[in-house]
């Protein structure tokens, strides 16, 4: 089985200050995955990217606005050839961090039929949101997203349909669960 590992090659920048640490069991999945997507962007890298976003293009201007105050965006996605390459219990240390003060699970969806399990967490601070985390666990794919920094759900919603991004609706207050 060919492992193709794509790593964001920004080694010259200091290690990102991720709010949530991925447990060692999750990091080790890279060796088993057929494909890995690893996007690690701290504040400095986000600002570099934002410099190359056009103020004149309405789509890029919105992204620039979204990214302006963010401290980091971290995406890790593993795709496996076979089912069963990771266990739900591997995610417990991550979930434990998301039970810390400020974080609330706003959506949890589980499908016995497909085996998909997805959770969305928001971190609230000083009356606003300061973080978003998504755990999307499918039989052959595991994706973990963290966005750290001042964030409004409507900012993500407003991106929908632009720049190739699907439309979404995230207008939920912390503490409410489906």
């Amino acid at each position, binding site marked *: 089985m060919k492992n193709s590992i794509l790593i964001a090659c920004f080694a010259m920048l200091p290690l990102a200050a991720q709010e949530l640490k991925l447990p060692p069991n999750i990091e080790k999945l890279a060796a088993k995955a057929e494909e890995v997507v690893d996007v690690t*962007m701290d504040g400095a890298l986000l600002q570099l990217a934002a410099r190359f976003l056009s103020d004149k293009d309405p789509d890029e201007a919105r992204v620039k606005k979204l990214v302006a105050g963010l401290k980091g965006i971290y995406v890790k*996605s593993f795709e496996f050839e076979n089912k069963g390459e990771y266990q739900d219990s591997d995610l417990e240390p991550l979930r434990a961090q998301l039970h810390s003060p400020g974080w609330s699970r706003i959506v949890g*969806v589980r499908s016995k039929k497909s085996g998909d399990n997805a959770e969305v967490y928001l971190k609230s601070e000083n009356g606003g949101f300061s973080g978003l985390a998504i755990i999307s666990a499918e039989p052959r794919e595991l994706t973990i*997203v963290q966005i750290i920094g001042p964030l409004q759900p409507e900012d993500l919603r407003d991106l929908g349909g632009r720049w*190739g991004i699907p439309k*979404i609706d*995230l207008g939920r207050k912390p503490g409410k669960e489906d």
Partner: protein
Amino acid sequence: MMDDFEKQLKDAFQRQDPSADFESRVLAAASREKQKPRRWLALWMPGHLRWAAALAMSLVLVAVVVRQREVHERAAGEAAKARLELALKITSTKLKKIQDQVNAGRQDE
């Protein structure tokens, strides 16, 4: 007539644009091509002009180095922009999927 899988391939292989300054770089290179035959004339310059030519060449080299640095910074910036776009698309795709699942669950109630 294409089936769904082939339509997915079409989506995946949409044309991309090169960097914003690609066109100007190509035209600059073509312009240099055009001027190539005249370079040999410099060998026949009188001595006093050769110093001026050498100075001009040094300035050109400095400009080239500065330009190279700009090119590298641009490449890094464009790469960062690409990663940002990918991260936001993955985030929104996952959120959309979750939203669809929630809505499907509500319809079943």
